[in-house]
C-alpha cells in the first residue's frame, strides 16, 4: 500500500516545532538529527521523508475478538486515506491477523520486528495478546502503540510500549460513580470471566470502584470466556435482588448473558466493562440490550470538529457507524503521524521519543496527550436507549 500525502493545516496543534529533514531509510538506519525550525506555524508539517514509513498493525481479524479487529482495520484504513492528503510523509501499512491467539500474535510481531521491519507496531487487539507480544517488541526496541488494550499493566511492560486506549482503571471508576449518582444504586452482583487477562483486570477495577463508591457487592460470580449458557449464574444473581448487575466480559459472552438475563426477568441495569462497548451488542441482543451501561473512551455524540469529520468520513467510506475501536484505531494512526513529523524521522528510537512527548493533539477522542505513555483525555458514560448508546446523565 503506497500513499501520497498532502498538507493539512492541523499544524498548529503540533506542539513540537521540529522540522525539515529527510530520512533516507525508514526503519533501522539512523536518520539525520532533526534541525530545529525557526518557530512559527510550519513545524512538523514541513517534514519530508522520501521513503514511505512502514507501520505494522497486529489485529484480531478472526476468532473471538474478530468484531473488534475488523472495526480497527476500518479505522486504520480511513486514517490512511486522510493522511494521504497531507504532504511530505507517506505510510506503508501492513495489517496482519493474529487470529485472537497470543501465539499467532508472537509470529506477527516477529515478522514486524525483523523479517519485514516496521517503524512502529499498532495493536494487538486484546490485552491478553499484548501481555505476550509487547515484551518482545520492548526487548528489540520497537515502539508499540496499543489502540485497544485497556487492561492494567500494559505500559508497565517497558518504555517502548504506549497506548491511546483509556485503560479500564480510568473509565470504570467514572462509570460506577456516574451510574450510582444517576440511578441511586446500593447493592450489586458482580459477574466476570476469570480466564481472561482483560476481563479479570476489569473485575479488579470494578471491585475497587465499587468499594470507593461505597456500593455493596452481594455476590460475585465467575464464568469462562467460552461460556454461552448463563442461566444458572443469572438465576443466582436474580435471587440476590441487586440494583444492578456489574459484568466484566467480552462481547461474545456479553450478548448471550444480556439476552438470557432479560429472559429470566432481570430488568435492572447491567453495567458492563469495555467488552460491552460495541454496537454489535444492540444488533444481536436487540431489545435485551436496553439499559446496558458502558463507560467508554470515545463519545460518539461528541460535536468536536475532528469527531464530526471522522463520523462523516467513516460513514462515507465504510457504509455504517464506527465504534470506539474504529475511533481509537483512527486516532492511533493520527498520533503516529504526529510523532513521525514531530521528530521528522521514521527511525524507531526517534518515534519512541517524540510519541511520548505528544501534547494536546486534537483527535476524535478529544484533546489527546500522553502522560508517561498512558493516554490522557476525557471518558464518557453511556446507556443503551432505543437501540443506540446515549450519554447517561
Amino acid at each position, binding site marked *: 500500500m503506497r500513499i501520497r500525502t498532502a498538507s493539512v493545516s492541523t499544524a498548529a496543534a503540533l506542539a513540537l516545532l521540529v522540522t525539515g529533514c529527510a530520512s533516507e531509510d525508514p526503519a533501522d538506519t539512523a536518520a539525520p538529527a532533526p534541525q530545529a525550525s525557526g518557530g512559527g506555524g510550519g513545524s512538523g508539517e514541513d517534514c519530508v521523508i522520501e521513503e514511505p514509513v512502514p507501520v505494522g498493525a497486529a489485529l484480531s481479524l*478472526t*476468532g*473471538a475478538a*474478530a*468484531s473488534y479487529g475488523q472495526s480497527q482495520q476500518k479505522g486504520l484504513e480511513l486514517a490512511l486515506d486522510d493522511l494521504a492528503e497531507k504532504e511530505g510523509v507517506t505510510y506503508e501499512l501492513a495489517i496482519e491477523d493474529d*487470529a485472537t491467539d497470543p501465539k499467532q500474535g508472537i509470529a506477527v510481531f516477529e515478522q514486524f520486528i525483523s523479517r519485514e521491519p516496521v517503524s512502529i507496531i499498532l495493536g494487538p487487539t486484546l490485552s491478553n495478546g499484548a501481555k505476550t507480544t509487547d515484551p518482545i517488541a520492548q526487548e528489540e526496541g520497537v515502539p508499540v502503540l496499543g489502540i485497544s488494550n485497556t487492561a492494567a499493566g500494559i505500559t508497565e511492560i517497558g518504555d517502548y510500549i504506549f497506548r491511546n486506549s483509556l485503560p479500564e482503571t480510568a473509565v470504570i471508576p467514572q462509570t460506577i460513580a456516574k451510574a450510582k449518582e444517576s440511578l441511586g444504586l446500593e447493592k450489586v452482583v458482580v459477574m466476570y470471566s*476469570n480466564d481472561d487477562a482483560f476481563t479479570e483486570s476489569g473485575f479488579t477495577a470494578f471491585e475497587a470502584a465499587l468499594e470507593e463508591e461505597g456500593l455493596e457487592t452481594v455476590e460475585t*460470580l*465467575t*464464568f469462562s470466556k*467460552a461460556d*454461552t*449458557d448463563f*442461566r*444458572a*449464574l443469572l*438465576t*443466582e444473581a*436474580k435471587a440476590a435482588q441487586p440494583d444492578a448487575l456489574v459484568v466484566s466480559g467480552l462481547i*461474545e459472552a456479553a*450478548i*448471550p448473558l444480556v*439476552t*438470557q438475563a432479560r*429472559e*429470566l*426477568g432481570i430488568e435492572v441495569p447491567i453495567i458492563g466493562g469495555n467488552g460491552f462497548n460495541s454496537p454489535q451488542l444492540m444488533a*444481536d*441482543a*436487540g*431489545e435485551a440490550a436496553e439499559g446496558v451501561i458502558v463507560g467508554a473512551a470515545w463519545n460518539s455524540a461528541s460535536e468536536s470538529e475532528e469527531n464530526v469529520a471522522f463520523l462523516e468520513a467513516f460513514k462515507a467510506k465504510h457504509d455504517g457507524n464506527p465504534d470506539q475501536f474504529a475511533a481509537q484505531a483512527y486516532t492511533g494512526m493520527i498520533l503516529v503521524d504526529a510523532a513521525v513529523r514531530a521528530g521528522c524521522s521514521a527511525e524507531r528510537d526517534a518515534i519512541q521519543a517524540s510519541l511520548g512527548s505528544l501534547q494536546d493533539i486534537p483527535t476524535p477522542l478529544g484533546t489527546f496527550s500522553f502522560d508517561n505513555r498512558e493516554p490522557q483525555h476525557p471518558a464518557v458514560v453511556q446507556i443503551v436507549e432505543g437501540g443506540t448508546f446515549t450519554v447517561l446523565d
Partner: protein
Amino acid sequence: MQQVLNGIFAGSIYALFAIGFTLVFGVLDRLNLAHAAVFTTSAYVGIELVADLGLSIWLAIPAVLVTGAVLGLVIERVAFRPLKGRHDAHFAGLISSIAVGGMFLALLQARYGPDTRRFPADAFPSTDFELGGVRITLLQLVILGVSLGLMLGLAYLVNRTRLGRGMRAVAENPHAAAVLGVNVDRVTATTFAISSALGAVAGVLLAFYVNSAQMTMGFNIELKGLAVIIVGGMGSLKGAMIGGIALGLAEVFAVQYVGSSWRDVVAFGLLFGILLLRPQGLFGARQVREV
C-alpha cells in the same frame, strides 16, 4: 426451582447428544468422534436456514434432523466402512472419525467464517410463562419436548420394531446376525444415520438455547458427552439420558451451592465419584470378557 429447570433444559440437550453418541457404541462397538462435528455443523445449518432462508424454527428442526442423518451416512461410508475388515477396526475407526470431523469443521469454517453466528433477534416466539416465581419460555419447553420425544422415539424403535431387533442382533454378534439374515451393512448405516440425526438436533437445540453457534461448541459438549455415556454405562441408552440430565443438574447445583468457579470441578468430580463406586456406570452391564 428455577435452577432445577435450568439444569433439566441444559441436561436434556446433553442427554440427546450423548444418546446418539452411545447408540453407535452400543450397537456397533465403535466410538464415533465425528459426532461433535455433526453437532456443530447442524447448529450452523440451522442458523442459516432460519436467518438466511427465513424458515421458521419449527421447520428448521426436521430439516436439521435430515441433514444430520445424511451426515451420519457420510461418516459411516467414509470413516468406518472402508476399515471394517481390519483387525484394529476399533482404533482405526476412532482415528478416521476424528479426521472426518475435522474435515466437516474445516468446510464449515470455509463456508461461514470463524465468527460466532446468531439467529436474528426476532426468530423465536417471545412467549414465556411464569409459575410460582419460575420463568419458562416457550422455546425452552420446545427444547425439552423435542429432546424427550426423540429419546422416547428411539427407545420405541430399538425395543419394538424390526429395525430395532436387527440393531440388537448386530449388537449381540454381527456374524450371527448376518447368518440369521439381518442385512448388517444396512443396519450399520441406519444406526449411524439415527445417531447423527440425534446429535444434529441436539446441536440446533443448543444453538436455540444459547442463541449462538461457534466453531468450538462441539469440543465442549464432546467431553461432556463422553463423560455422560461413561457414567451412564457405555452403550446404555437409558444411562445416557439420565446421565445427561444429571450432569446438567450437577452443573447448576455446583453454581448454587459451591461457587461458580468450581462448576466443572464439582460436575466432573461427581461423575468421577460415580465411576469409582460403579465402574460399569449407572446402567452398564459388567463387562464379561470372552476368551
